[in-house]
């Protein structure tokens, strides 16, 4: 399993907002334990997907000059669930972006149904503090999620 909890960005307005989707599929191993007989996307992984959407939005604004780390979830409410075959749509709105970190407001929808909403605070750390291995978030976005940010090239943030 690779730690990608978003599949694609469908909208990306640098410094403002972004939308990414996550397709929930029955072949994901963890769904067969969560829950047996009733596969449903774990809330923690939806949170991770929203954090990846918001974290990339925040990081891109400074051209990934800082390493962005999920630091605090002040508020997160789960209203509904997502099942295999659903497409989760995560929307993140950039509320704050400073040298020390930033904050996003996020929502998760399946169609019209609001699944989750809340706030996520990120902190920036410099590589020296990271210790051990080098983390390269810019590479993570550009080489692993190839073309993920190209969607924003239309200029107004909409998908081409």
């Amino acid at each position, binding site marked *: 399993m690779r730690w990608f909890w978003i599949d694609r960005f469908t909208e990306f307005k640098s410094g403002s907002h972004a939308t990414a989707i996550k397709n929930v599929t029955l072949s994901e191993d963890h769904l067969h334990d969560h829950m047996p007989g009733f596969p449903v996307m774990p809330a923690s992984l939806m949170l991770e997907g929203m954090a990846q959407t918001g974290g990339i939005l925040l990081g891109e604004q400074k051209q990934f000059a800082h390493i962005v780390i999920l630091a605090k979830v*002040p*508020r997160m409410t789960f209203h509904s669930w997502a099942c295999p075959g659903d497409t989760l749509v995560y929307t993140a709105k950039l*509320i704050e972006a*400073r*040298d020390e970190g*930033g*904050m996003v407001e996020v929502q998760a929808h399946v169609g019209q149904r609001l699944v989750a909403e809340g706030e996520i*605070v990120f*902190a920036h750390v410099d590589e020296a503090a990271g210790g051990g291995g080098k983390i390269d978030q810019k590479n993570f976005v550009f080489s692993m999620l190839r073309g993920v940010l190209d969607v924003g090239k239309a200029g107004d943030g909409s998908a081409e």
Partner: protein
Amino acid sequence: MPSRDEIFEKVQSTLVDALGLDEDEVTATSRLKADLGAESIDFLDIVFRLEKNFGIKIPRNELFPESLFTADSGFAENGRVTAKGLDELRTRLPHADKDTLDALAKDPRVENVEDLFTVNMVVNFLASKLAA
């Protein structure tokens, strides 16, 4: 220019949002760490919300100076704040309560520095920022 009460009410609701507390738990003399359970990451969150709620910019280190807490700053030795440290506190925290600063000078244990960070300190800081 809002009144001190108006500033206090906004600071109170900011802390309620940031720390997930009830309104009546946040009083003027509440200490951010000891009474309200704030941690270092919460300080970042609090600064974000204060900027948004009051429409001002709070540059890094102005409200919660980081230099006070670094190990090699010379401001603390063996768990006690040095004279250099006390001077630094008085300079960097003009909005802190004077009585608490004096009490700290008499009992300069490093743990007591956190007691300077109260709701009143935040209100004082904002009052002077908004008046400028």
